[in-house]
């Protein structure tokens, strides 16, 4: 039984998991064996990385080419004042290695691109999309769907958040939003602002989806886009259907992200 491989320290550290019928020693062993990539170590990525590290996800990879800015610190709780000007993956590494020696941290201080997406995403058990721009968001969707890797989409704006989990047998982000909007038509956090605690709520939902997927328990947020309004404390679900004409998850999909230009509308050629 896999759970017998847990040492006494791990049995203590993860005791509140292990005691749960739906997790148990086997579930905790699955978490320790899991390989998860978090794309973006910002607002959403911070709570995702922190909770997945605490949960004992065995390999936790983070890709982010950004450095910490002082304006990040109102919501990006991985980073400290002293980290301003340093790579975000360095803050993530420090936090994870300080928290949990069971986690093998893999930091990639690069931008996710068409060229490196396959290497970075393909062999993961789960990917968490915590990006802050449409180009990378569509690339994560396309690369994960083509590789058959489940992922959680999350996005935030002022008081509002969205989340959707994409699995190989369900609708993808392009089934909802076939193309990215023209640049400048949808404001980002820098121009519109965002409530500092909002990514905490949405990131925790995404981390929950990752853990559930690894454990194989519960119902994932597939086939429905979750909308959260922090102002009214309201959750709403929008049913999403798989589009057979979707160029990525449909009946005649593209073969590679090389067929897509991840600028402008991220249109499939």
């Amino acid at each position, binding site marked *: 039984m896999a759970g017998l491989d847990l040492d006494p320290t791990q049995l203590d550290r993860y005791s509140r998991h292990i005691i749960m019928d739906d997790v148990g020693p086997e579930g905790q062993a699955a978490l320790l064996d899991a390989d998860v990539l978090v794309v*973006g170590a*910002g*607002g*959403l*990525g911070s709570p995702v990385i922190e909770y997945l590290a605490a949960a004992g996800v065995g390999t936790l990879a983070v890709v982010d080419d950004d450095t910490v800015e002082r304006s990040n610190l109102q919501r990006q709780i991985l980073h400290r004042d002293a980290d301003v000007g340093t790579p975000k993956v360095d803050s993530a590494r420090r936090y994870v290695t300080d928290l949990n020696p069971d986690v093998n941290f893999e930091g990639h201080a690069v931008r996710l691109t068409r060229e490196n997406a396959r290497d970075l995403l393909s062999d993961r058990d789960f990917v968490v*999309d*915590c*990006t*802050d*721009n*449409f180009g990378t*968001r569509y690339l994560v969707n396309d690369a994960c769907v083509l590789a058959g890797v489940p992922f959680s989409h*999350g*996005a*935030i*704006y002022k008081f*509002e*958040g*969205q989340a959707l989990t994409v699995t190989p047998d369900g*609708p993808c982000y392009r*089934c*909802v*939003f*076939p193309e*990215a*909007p*023209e640049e400048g*038509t*949808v404001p*980002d*956090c820098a121009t*519109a602002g*965002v409530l500092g605690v909002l*990514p905490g709520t949405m990131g925790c939902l995404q981390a929950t989806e990752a853990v559930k997927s690894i454990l194989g328990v519960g119902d994932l947020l597939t*086939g429905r*886009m979750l*909308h959260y*309004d922090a102002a009214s404390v*309201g959750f*709403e679900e*929008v*049913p*999403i*259907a798989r*589009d057979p004409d979707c160029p990525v998850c449909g009946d005649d999909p593209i073969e590679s992200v090389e067929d897509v230009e991840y600028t402008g509308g991220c249109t499939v050629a």
Partner: protein
Amino acid sequence: MHVTVEVVGEDVHEFDVEGASYADLLERVDLSPHEVSVMVDGRPVPEDQPVESEHVTVLRLVQGG
């Protein structure tokens, strides 16, 4: 035709329309086709198509992370 337009996270609007497109509905709720997806039965519909459904869901594109 009586159409219910639900802007997710915002208001629900009721309109009586004849020969309108989905883009016309968006204009009546003061939204641009660039910033939303217009959905019927869980699938996006082209904004320039005539309205054929009595219930339309409008979902905003959000990019922040």
